[in-house]
């Protein structure tokens, strides 16, 4: 099995002999080892395992406390925890499930039983991850779907507002897309959408949020971007789309995009208002001939946009 496909386990146990046995038994897995709870929590900052095998009685913080902390953390709460312990009494077992454990195996364990339980937890975790991905992803393009976009965008808007930091919204719409679908078929249209989304995502930093709102309409939120940065980004995207050679289409076929830009500094009270502003500018870009970026109600820009200072104080002026 390729390294990337191998399920990853974190084994937390303070006894070397137990680790020797577990490491030997779990030879088909990519295994990370921690000797105590604090080390395990440290490791989880860098690694996300499929399943955690967790001893209970350990120096420092015990397995219950480790589990409690993991279940309180949004990044770790969905990782199944399989307690593996010499505590055989019912109260310990019940407590393990109360703090969020997914399964409980006692030492001495039976090898095949342990392997079966680990496998089931790995499969469960992977299935849940896939469902989570599907729930937030647009199936065709791989961008965030509409629901996920608005949910995440709401948080970005609130964060930017609370910290008084710049935030820009871009609304993007592919020009004359219906003609591609009608003229060359939906397969070519779908391929074009996929290619467009892949290209945009490749150009964006990880902090930015990109989603498909429907059809050929997309939205982008750029935290930290003032009007100048957002306009430059929009122009970069516009130019890149115009250069894009559509893989599944005749060589002469080109695609263009119109983009409307709005920034939080212009006074939008909420996310809807910000997106409405960007959408209104997108409409103007369309009306004024398409394949352009519109950043205010009255001025469209090209690559060499006029510039002033940064942040809200330096918003581009019409």
């Amino acid at each position, binding site marked *: 099995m390729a390294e990337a496909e191998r399920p990853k386990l974190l084994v937390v146990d303070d006894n070397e002999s137990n680790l020797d046995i577990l490491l030997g038994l779990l030879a088909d897995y990519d295994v990370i*080892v921690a000797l105590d709870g604090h080390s395990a929590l440290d490791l989880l900052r860098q690694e996300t395992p499929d399943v955690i095998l967790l001893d209970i009685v350990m120096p420092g913080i015990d397995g219950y406390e480790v589990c409690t902390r993991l279940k309180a953390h949004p990044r770790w709460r969905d990782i199944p925890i399989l307690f593996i312990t010499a505590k055989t009494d019912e109260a310990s077992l019940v407590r393990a499930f109360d703090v969020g454990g997914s399964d409980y195996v006692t030492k001495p364990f039976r090898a095949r039983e342990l392997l079966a339980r680990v496998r089931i937890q790995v499969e469960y975790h992977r299935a849940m991850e896939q469902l989570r991905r599907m729930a937030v992803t647009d199936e065709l393009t791989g961008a965030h779907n509409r629901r996920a976009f608005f949910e995440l965008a709401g948080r970005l808007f609130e964060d930017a507002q609370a910290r008084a930091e710049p935030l820009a919204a871009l609304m993007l719409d592919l020009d004359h897309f219906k003609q591609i679908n009608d003229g060359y078929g939906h397969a070519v249209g779908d391929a074009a959408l996929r290619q467009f989304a892949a290209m945009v995502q490749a150009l964006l930093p990880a902090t930015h949020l990109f989603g498909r709102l429907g059809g050929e309409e997309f939205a982008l939120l750029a935290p930290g971007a003032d009007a100048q940065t957002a306009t430059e980004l929009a122009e970069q995207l516009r130019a890149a789309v115009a250069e894009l050679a559509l893989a599944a289409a005749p060589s002469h076929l080109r695609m263009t995009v119109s983009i409307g830009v709005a920034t939080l500094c212009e006074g939008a009270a909420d996310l809807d208002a910000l997106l409405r502003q960007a959408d209104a500018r997108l409409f103007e870009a369309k009306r004024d001939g398409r394949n352009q970026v519109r950043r205010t109600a009255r001025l469209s820009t090209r690559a060499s946009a006029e510039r002033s200072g940064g942040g809200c104080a330096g918003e581009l002026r019409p």
Partner: protein
Amino acid sequence: MATEPPPLPDIPGLDTVALDERMQGDPALVRAVLGHFAATQRAAADRLPELVQHDLPGALHRSHDLKGMLGNLGADALYTQAAQLCELLRDEPPDVRAALAPALQLQRALPRLCDEIAAALGPEAPPTDGVAAPLPPVEQGAAAGHRAAGHQAQDPSAFTTALTRLAEPLRRSRAREAKQALAALSACAASADQQTLVADLTPLVTGYRLRDALRVLEQNCHG
């Protein structure tokens, strides 16, 4: 080519059939696990009676640890003693007088079990002083292969390369890969300094103290 290790003789106090089943019938792994146990756990119950008398939480922690380890290993009689000790220490109030008997028994019997295991493993068994814990059998084979080839030991850059290769799994907390890299490092340790470094790293890597091992390695590189 690695040869199949000879079958283990009966070891008094140890259910080797259960351990073999737990290790999915891998005799080399069984030997490696037993060798490491004998090398590192001889003194694990030494302070148990003292803890029972003066530090009940410490005694409970130790006896619980022994219970899990001895159970997994198939040391059934000692596992029963450790389990009984745990029960007595968990009683409200704990029965210290009654708990002393299994504690003393574990204190006496654990070194004997380690000796029996070391004797059963034969002359290639690691010393029981806890310093040189065994590498897994595959890695031992690989290390022997490297030594037999000889060329790595004479290449001055080979040791440096092997050190770099060891650093990676140490950083990523991958014990299995770290043991393999350590075996390769051991195979090309030619000078006394290099062998000393390997000797310093071995108990840390086989004892899963990977961050400590990384610290030693980095100090060596920067020193």
